[in-house]
């Protein structure tokens, strides 16, 4: 009789303890998850790398000058800190009067929207023709020129870095390039890019 009573009173107490433990554990897990998510969100929000874009512009054709400049200006418009490293043929974009001289090559460019055999692209006069056509297409659709995009990039404080080695190899002097750019090398670009989540090679 006494044993039974003891068991009857003990059992509910143990059940209650277990119930409390379970509830506390569940509530704690839930709260902890929310707290951790909040902390992570705060940290990523503050993370300056999330707001930094490092872009390499390595091509010197009219068509390939667009992507780095469009992305650079858009990123700057999104309040990101942006650096574009102009190397190899891409350096032509930074030459004084350079954007106007960029051309699109029809040869070996099967995506060219011209209904003719690609091999004809080798004929004299085809490159200027293709360039005029592409400029016309862009203008018709109100796409701004490369020169205008570069101007916007400068206005938006995009950091423009000219590759020193390319300058030496191609024989460009500092005065051949626009005043708004700075000159640097691979290490200076990488040092900037190491603090950027968005890094693009174009």
């Amino acid at each position, binding site marked *: 009789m006494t044993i039974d009573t003891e068991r009857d009173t003990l059992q509910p107490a143990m059940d209650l303890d277990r119930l409390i433990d379970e509830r506390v554990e569940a509530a704690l897990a839930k709260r902890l998850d929310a707290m951790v998510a909040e902390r992570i969100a705060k940290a990523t*929000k*503050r993370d300056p790398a999330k707001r930094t874009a490092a872009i390499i512009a390595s091509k010197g054709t009219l068509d390939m000058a667009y992507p780095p400049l*469009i*992305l650079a*200006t*858009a990123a*700057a*418009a*999104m*309040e*990101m800190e942006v650096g574009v490293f102009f190397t190899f043929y891409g350096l032509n974009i930074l030459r004084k009067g350079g954007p106007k001289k960029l051309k699109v090559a029809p040869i070996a460019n099967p995506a060219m929207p011209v209904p003719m055999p690609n091999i004809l692209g080798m004929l004299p006069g085809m490159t200027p023709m293709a360039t005029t056509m592409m400029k016309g297409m862009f203008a018709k*659709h*109100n*796409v*701004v020129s490369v020169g205008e995009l570069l101007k*916007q990039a400068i*206005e*938006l404080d995009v950091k423009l870095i000219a590759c020193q080695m390319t300058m030496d190899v191609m024989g460009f002097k500092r005065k051949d390039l626009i005043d708004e750019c700075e000159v640097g090398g691979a290490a200076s670009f990488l040092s900037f890019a190491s603090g950027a989540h968005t890094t693009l090679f174009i």
Partner: protein
Amino acid sequence: MSEPVHVDRYLDAKGQMCPMPVIAVKKAMKDLERGQVIAIAATDRGACRDIPAWAEQTGHKLITWDEQSGVFTFYVEKAGWEDE
């Protein structure tokens, strides 16, 4: 679009192509006070995705947007930064 939104500044980006609408709105934002609303009109279909993405990244609030015969209008409220 139910109630009309109070607009402090109107920005016409009609006819402009990517990335010009976001550049234009970024520049226009400078002259606005916190809480003021800018309306951006654009015809570039890419702007439908770009303006919301721009707002999300910059922290400004996209209140609403509408489309009337090919013209997209976005209503964005300038955010304040005190709480950061």
